[in-house]
């Protein structure tokens, strides 16, 4: 019997229950390979391309453009050219008859947890089991959902913790000094509290500077470093973005700033803006962001430069950048010490881990092995 596969709606992050098929990127009859983008899907968080993990011919487009399909629902059928049409009809019929969309109750599954660490509430999401744990650290103004497309993929073979940094997400909003050191101390204290003696640290933007700071002050706690569009490798930063993000109060004010985070500004959906606005409306967020911006990015320059510390780090280091990064220029990935492996992804902006999620996950997965 020849192979016949179901192409289904992926689940990007815990809160995703359905996606809207915006457009097909391949025609029926086209040959598909793993990693190939087959269609564009829009969720209540973000729009992205669905990449195939299958190999074969796209025999049938089950979902039409504009359809809203639940997670795990059937998008199309991929099979060998030799598979008869009747067999494909039967598969679709059988699927539609038996498919039960995951109920919202199932969706609550692994919810973020909260823990008190040194007088602060820290919120984190843990997935996966085994191996050396991985700790994901988001950037300025972000939260653990910045790892929406990476978390599940990386957790298949290891334990992953995504953290809301102090002042961010659902963690406590009080910030004392707002420098990289304060945030690094909070992360180290978090690792103590949940019992992580040693971890792979993956930091995005400001989270990258935090990761290097921990590796430098407590080298025995770090197995490897991955720095994505990282702060700390040069003085320059897009000060207009930092100021604009902190000051924005409405959807229209926020939108142009969020669009700078991506190479494709179309990825900034109304819902994505709403999520960020909901965060910015929480009590204490204005003050927290202000304090971090005024300290870590005082005068529109990066205050904490960790390039020298990086040269002394004795663990494997991976540096990832989007070639179109408008927040921290990809040139900051140049002239790094010899122990550092650098990977630049084309057509991606500052949020490269979202915009080129599949490729970044592949490189990360291999690096963390």
């Amino acid at each position: 019997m020849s192979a016949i596969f179901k192409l289904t709606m992926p689940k990007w992050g815990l809160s995703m229950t359905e996606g809207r098929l915006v457009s097909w990127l391949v025609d029926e009859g086209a040959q598909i390979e793993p990693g190939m983008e087959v269609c564009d899907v829009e969720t209540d968080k973000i729009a992205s391309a669905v990449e195939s993990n299958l190999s074969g011919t796209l025999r049938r487009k089950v979902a039409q453009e504009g359809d809203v399909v639940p997670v795990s629902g059937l998008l199309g059928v991929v099979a060998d050219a030799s598979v008869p049409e009747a067999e494909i009809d039967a598969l679709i019929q059988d699927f539609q008859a038996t498919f039960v969309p995951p109920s919202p109750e199932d969706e609550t599954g692994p919810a973020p947890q909260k823990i008190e660490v040194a007088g602060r509430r820290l919120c984190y999401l843990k997935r996966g089991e085994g191996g050396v744990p991985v700790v994901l650290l988001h950037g300025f103004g972000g939260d653990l959902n910045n790892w929406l497309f990476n978390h599940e993929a990386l957790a298949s073979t290891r334990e992953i913790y995504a953290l809301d940094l102090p002042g961010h997400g659902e963690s406590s909003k009080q910030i004392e000094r707002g420098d990289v050191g304060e945030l690094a101390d909070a992360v180290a204290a978090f690792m103590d509290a949940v019992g992580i003696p040693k971890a792979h640290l993956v930091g995005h933007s400001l989270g990258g500077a935090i990761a290097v700071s921990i590796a430098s002050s407590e080298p025995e706690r770090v197995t490897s470093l991955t720095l994505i569009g990282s702060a700390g490798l040069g003085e320059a930063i897009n000060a207009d973005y930092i100021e604009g993000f902190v000051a924005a109060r409405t959807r229209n004010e926020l939108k142009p700033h969020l669009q700078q985070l991506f190479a494709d500004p179309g990825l900034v959906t109304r819902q994505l803006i709403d999520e960020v606005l909901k965060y910015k409306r929480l009590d204490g967020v204005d003050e927290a962001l202000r304090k971090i911006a005024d300290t870590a990015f005082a005068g529109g320059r990066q205050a904490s430069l960790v390039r020298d510390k990086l040269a002394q780090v004795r663990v494997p280091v991976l540096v990832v950048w989007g070639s179109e990064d408008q927040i921290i220029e990809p040139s900051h990935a140049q002239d790094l010490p010899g122990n550092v492996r650098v990977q630049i992804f084309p057509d991606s902006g500052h949020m490269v881990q979202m915009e080129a999620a599949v490729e970044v996950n592949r490189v990360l997965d291999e690096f963390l092995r």
Partner: protein
Amino acid sequence: MARSITFQQAINEALSQEMARDQSVIVMGEDNVGGMGAEGEKDAWGGVLGVTKGLYPKYGERVMDTPISESAFIGAAIGAATAGMRPVAELMFIDFMGVCFDQIFNQAAKFRYMFGGKAKTPVVIRTMVGAGFRAAAQHSQILYSIFTHIPGLKVVIPATPYDAKGLLIQSIRDNDPVIFCEHKMLYGVQGEVPEEIYTIPFGEANVVREGKNVTVVTLGRMLHVVLEAAANLAKNNIQCEVIDLRTTSPMDEATILESVQNTGRLVVVDEANPRCNIATDVSAIVAQKAFRALKAPIEMVTAPHTPVPFSPDLEDLYVPNAAKIEAAVVEVMAYKQ
């Protein structure tokens, strides 16, 4: 992720969190304590529909039962506000506001202006509005338009649990008198609400659904009916952009005008009686400021010019429904110059 709670719980949580944060916040109204504290009472009734339930055990004398005398306790709340408290007074039904118009219109709304900007009146008057509860003509009116007419008052009409919490906290912190209108048919509506404290600024409408064909401006409970209509219309390829005003004073003109510039068509859906209401107000603004963008006459979907009927069949006819909204949108779409 935020948990899901009801509109009623969201209001209760906003009151409780602000009372915990700020000692000057007090709650008063008919039956807000509701017997709690009296001998033999184990639990508070918490207002006519239980919205303030549980506050008295936590905050004691900062939650007060008042006599059935709206003129007296609304006046007292306004007085307390001028003296430095942040009172939240519950006036059961907006229909009863008439007996304290002097206190609200001619006193609270005017203090800032009469005293050279030196007086502030941070009072919130929470009140139930709207039809659909089989409560007849004297307990079912919507009336927010009357308060919108008065400079010096802020008027808030939340449509979702998330908005109810954030807008009520903003109302409590605001230094002007706020009329906070809670549609009684929304109390059971569930929605995601953060546990943390947050505020939603006044005068910022919410674009709840994006669409390129018709702008539908609405508020309060009607948002849910409009969304139902918009979902039906989408099946026929008519894409509605749905705007929830959230507050009518101040009102977010910019969002309305920007949307009409894009769609060229406007339908306004308002549960109020048709004369001098929010629908006429929004229509006038758009006709004046975006006339050239319009491809069709503006349509308004409102209640008729009658009191709210007691007969359930007639009451259901009275309140705008999805079919009427869909018909109005179809008419606007079909218009040829």
